[in-house]
């Protein structure tokens, strides 16, 4: 029996399902370097065509071309490459330990590392990030200790979050990384409030927020764009369009009729659409938006066009809803391979250096992992006293919680 098609109301369908040949023929991918770079202070009204373009810098040969090609120190590019590689290796180990039953859950960012890492390197360290669960690259690019991240994933005795949050729901005030919420979208509108507060103090830091294309359907996305537009908040509103929201393709989020960048146009917010697997392009658009925000010129919406190369999480099996090999067919390639090729092309990197760095990073992750596991895992070893579950509900524990803690026998 062939799969039924809908009648009457339109129900979006992806380009393929399991058993089909993966295809991205419906995407038009312009060549790198074809989009002009406006001055950072132009009026949003002059930029109405940007949501329909795709800013790309790295070409097929690893060259950096066009207006948007940033002039960055090779050392910074190597830092970026290293952070992306470390993120991927970290993800791989965390999935392994989850499979070993040492924690309950994990979420990879494979194929999307540039989204977080390039942004982190284009922002200043004091800028506040309001991420989703898929921007662990921000913490890594800001050199946050892997062991601390692992402690959270393990909910172990050294977890600063006291075992309260699911794995990957990190929080680090010191790293300018806001607490991850399980409720999609809430961080997006909060980021605008943070940015409004900073602006009202005439402070230098700006805010940057990330949201998945799927979660743009939540009310908080609308609140964020509305308040950012009304109060011209210094915030970068990133939309990570990785084509999938668990089993739903981007058409279910409203991606069939226009781009997600166009959402910004609806509010008169300058909106850029960028190749999310192109480290240089992501760095360039982030730097542009940050300069604009710091100049008091308000928010920018950035759609990062990328692809979720792996399952949604360790609980997910993408083989159930999308064609096998879709990630291989993805036309924008892999962010690590592309930056690597560029560095080699400009003579600042080699296959051997790459191999050595891979080894070194794997060892770094192994060491961090051993140290973290010495503080326990979700299922074994040291853990915090159970009585801690009554802490931090309020700043001071009210009588009814003291009574309940006593009832619990702690």
């Amino acid at each position, binding site marked *: *029996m062939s*799969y*039924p*098609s*809908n*009648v*009457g*109301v339109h*129900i979006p*369908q992806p380009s393929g*399902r399991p058993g089909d040949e993966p295809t991205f023929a419906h995407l038009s991918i312009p060549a790198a370097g074809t989009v002009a770079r406006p001055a950072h202070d132009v009026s949003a009204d002059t930029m109405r065509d940007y949501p329909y373009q795709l800013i790309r810098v790295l070409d097929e040969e690893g060259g950096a071309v066009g207006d948007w090609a940033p002039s960055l120190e090779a050392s910074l590019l190597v830092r970026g490459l290293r952070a992306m590689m470390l993120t991927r290796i970290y993800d791989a180990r965390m999935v392994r330990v989850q499979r070993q039953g040492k924690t*309950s*859950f994990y979420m990879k960012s494979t194929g999307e590392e540039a989204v977080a890492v390039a942004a982190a390197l284009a922002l200043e360290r004091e800028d506040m990030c309001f991420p989703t669960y898929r921007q662990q690259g921000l913490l890594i690019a800001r050199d946050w200790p892997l062991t601390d991240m692992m402690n959270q994933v393990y*909910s172990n005795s050294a*977890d600063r979050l*006291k*075992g*309260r*949050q*699911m794995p990957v*729901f990190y929080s680090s005030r010191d790293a300018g990384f806001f607490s991850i*919420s*399980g*409720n*999609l*979208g809430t961080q997006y509108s909060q980021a605008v409030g943070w940015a409004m507060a900073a602006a009202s103090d005439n402070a230098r830091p700006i805010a940057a927020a990330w949201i998945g294309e*799927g*979660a743009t*359907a*939540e*009310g908080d996305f609308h609140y964020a764009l509305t308040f950012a537009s009304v109060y011209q908040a210094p915030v970068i509103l990133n939309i990570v369009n990785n084509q999938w*929201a*668990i*089993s*739903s393709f981007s058409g*279910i*989020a*409203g991606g069939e009729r226009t781009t997600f960048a166009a959402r910004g146009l609806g509010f008169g917010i300058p909106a850029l659409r960028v190749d999310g697997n192109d480290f240089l392009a992501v760095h360039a658009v982030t730097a542009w938006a940050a300069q604009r925000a710091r100049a008091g010129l308000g928010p920018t919406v950035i759609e990062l066009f990328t692809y979720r190369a792996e399952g949604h999480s360790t*609980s997910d099996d993408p083989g*159930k*809803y999308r064609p096998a090999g879709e990630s291989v067919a993805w036309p924008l390639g892999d962010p690590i391979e592309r930056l690597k090729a560029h560095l080699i092309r400009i003579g600042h990197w080699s296959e051997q250096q790459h191999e050595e760095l891979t080894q070194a990073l794997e060892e770094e992750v192994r060491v961090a992992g051993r140290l973290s596991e010495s503080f326990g895992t*979700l299922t074994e070893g040291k*853990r*915090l006293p*159970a009585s*801690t*579950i*009554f802490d931090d*509900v309020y700043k001071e524990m009210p009588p*009814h*919680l003291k009574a*309940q803690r006593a009832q*619990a026998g702690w």
Partner: protein
Amino acid sequence: MNAMPKMNMIEAIRSAMDVALEEDGNVVVFGQDVGYFGGVFRATEGLQRKYGPSRVFDAPISEGGIVAVAVGMGAYGKRPVVEIQFADYIYPATDQLISEAARMRYRTAGEWWSPLTVRSPYGGGIYGGQTHSQSPEGIFTHVAGLKTVIPSTPYDAKGLLIAAIEDDDPVLFFEPKRLYNGPFDGHHDRPVQPWTQHPSSEVPEGRYVIPLGQANVVRPGEAITVLAYGTMVHVALTAAKETAVDAEIIDLRTLMPLDLETIATSVRKTGRCVIVHEATRTCGFGAELAALVQEACFYDLEAPIERVTGWDTPYPHAFEWEYFPGPARVGAALQRAVQE
């Protein structure tokens, strides 16, 4: 007729939607990932293939939009059954549920109504942390115009869900996700036995209804009345067994409208009452039960009504079993109460 099929709770819930889709062309099923994929808990698996994408489809990640659209479809004449992927994510829909669905019939004196069913997995015990473990029923039982149903077995789940779908008022149908695969007894450190070994896994293929508003005495007893629903029904049964307290255990099944008569009859007999739920205690549904029981049975009560519930904290990831009101805590309460 041939042997009764065995179903776990997910299969029973799927079967209820299958029956409803089959029998009423106005039934539509939608929500996040419920279409092609069949839902993250597989509750709608195969239904899109069987009934087509215009009747079973994926929705944007917008709980408020999902319920709003269901209210509009209901006004047109459809009978929407929507899934909120986790009860923890129902909050963006509270305005449409409380201000719209619940009050539509009242504010229009019956000219419009909202015949929708909102399915949502609730409760903890799957290491879901504070955003995949909540039991928010007590927020909605406060709202005039809403009905709230929580099943504890596959058989009840199917009969209650069909009744909810056929009901012309908005019904919240919270599914104890910890019971999807088996009658979890509260001992997380022991293997869960599958539903197949439980008599309530015998579920008829076709349509049958368990009327809303009728509680079920799952264990008759003389010593004390235990009020529970969802996961806690099985925990209470375990506690009674392990403490050998002759408890009369009542599975409420429908929280609103509540079967107060069955409750009061039992408490008048036993003179004692323990209320068990997984939700946080303060202003949880147990508070209403305690208030009603002492109003109805004051002169029969021989001991204070005790509530055994989740603590008044968010649901902690690593310590969920310290949070969860398991057999030990329930059993201790039973013994306290009978010794009073």
